[in-house]
């Protein structure tokens, strides 16, 4: 599939179509940490509300200042879909793939959820409420794509 505009694709893994972060000072710390496989998120220094994607103003208290907090990188699937129809011929080998809304441990949930590709899973078995953990793909010097995979069973 060398003529696939998405490159070498794998089943279930949505290909990286944006390879630059277009970061500014409000988002750069996220991408810096991602390079080191760490998940960080900005927390309002006034009311403690997390906001992802990072925005300049807190939606709860309108405060601007944040502190960057390292999160465990785990979470729970809040909603999920299985994309079965490829919207581009190059995505035919990729479907079915799963997209989920993940509520991140260590945050308040809404306002700091991540909307991500869930990989390394059986699409038919993955369900709302399942536990997942972050997995970064280091694409280049600036972009590390956040995806999630089911949490490894303990013991």
């Amino acid at each position, binding site marked *: 599939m060398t003529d696939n*505009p*998405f490159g070498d694709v794998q089943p279930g893994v*949505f*290909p*990286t*179509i*944006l390879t*630059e*972060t*277009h*970061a*500014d000072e*409000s*988002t750069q710390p*996220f*991408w810096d940490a991602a390079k080191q496989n760490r998940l960080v998120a900005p927390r309002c220094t006034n009311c403690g509300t997390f906001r*992802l*994607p*990072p*925005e300049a103003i807190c*939606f709860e208290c309108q405060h601007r200042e944040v502190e960057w907090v390292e999160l465990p990188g785990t979470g729970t699937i*809040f*909603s*999920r*879909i*299985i*994309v*079965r*129809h490829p*919207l*581009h011929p*190059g995505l035919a080998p990729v479907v*079915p*793939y799963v*997209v989920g*809304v993940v509520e991140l441990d260590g945050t308040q*949930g*809404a*306002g*700091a*959820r*991540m*909307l*991500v*590709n869930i990989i390394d899973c059986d699409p038919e078995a993955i369900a*709302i*409420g399942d536990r997942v953990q972050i997995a970064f793909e280091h694409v280049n010097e600036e*972009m590390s*794509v*956040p995806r999630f995979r089911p949490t490894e069973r303990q013991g």
Partner: protein
Amino acid sequence: MTIKDQAAVVGIGRTPYWKRGQSYPETEMSMACTAILAALDDAGLAVTDVDGFAIYAHACDPATVAATLGIPEIRYAASITSGGGGSAGALGLAASAIAGGMATCCVTLMSLQQLTRRLGGSAVDGMLAYATMSEGGGSAYGRGGLPPSVAFTANNGVLSPGHGFSLITARHMHLYGTRREAFAEVCISQRSNAAKRPMSLQREPLTLDDYFDARMVSDPLCLLDYTMESDGAVAVVTVSADRAKDLKQPPAYIMGSAHGGSGRWGPAIFRYCQTPDEEFASSGHRPVARRLYEMAGVRPGDVDVALLYDHFSPLVVLQLEDYGFCPIGEGGPFVEDGNIRFGTGKIPVNTHGGNLSDAYIIGMTHIVEAVEQLRGTAVNQVEDAEIALVTGGPASLPVSGTLLRR
């Protein structure tokens, strides 16, 4: 003071409907003009009467339409922001312009032709365009380039409105046990309504087996849960209630209209899914419904027919909840019990077939059907219909609702 009962829809007009891309050699402008002239003729008004445009989703450029048709003077030209969610609300815009003395005769319309471009897009460039389209606040004078937040979602595989609405649907099914049988009933009941209408695009009978045999597109949504894509134009004309009495058709009075939604719904669909749980699995219409009923002074039980925006069948179920026809979370069983059927149900829904089976002109066909129901001229006429509800969206804010009465 509100806009209650101050204006009325007095004319409706449309082109034929076509499957996506089949309207060539018509253009969006030619179809818009055809629909406007038909609506004026229906009302017994002339081009020279028109002085306002109350539109949504950038339906047309009023300057070009005015020059083309020979409208002598434009006194009002305004659009509800965002997309299809503003369709029903554009009638409120017209009523407010008229009640406020800024215009006397407003056109509301949609003209849609998808020859080379499709809503939602499908190529790689389209994916990136889609990834950025709902960022909002774009300006030709800003920093340029993509906003920093785009990188958080551009690579996640959410590529179309259907993907976003599937996420909302899946949460509703999880919270309340809503079944695909309910979505099937939306599709089947609307198809049976369209079957009796010569102008509707999808008239073949649809069975439960057909529904469950349809291929899954973005599970839990299958192909039949998605609206078709159509070409065509629909226009309506609104004037003051006083003037409406002397025109050709029985007026459809605008009892109330509201558009908007919760501030936190803004980041709900398409990109971020950040709405609090109590609203996430909803149509986003709850605050709009509350204001609409309050303005009109009626309750859900007073509504005789509901024309609910149906780009995706599950969102009809969620709107039934948000507009108070059943309790929150009970939309699935309510629909499965036959309550939205024409002829037998408690609240007939989309008696014209809706976006799903009649034609997808981004909500305008719902307005036309509401007016025909109140005139008593609908193909699937609800007996003694006095009050009709029309909605636009769910979509990015604003979503909208309008109550009309005869």
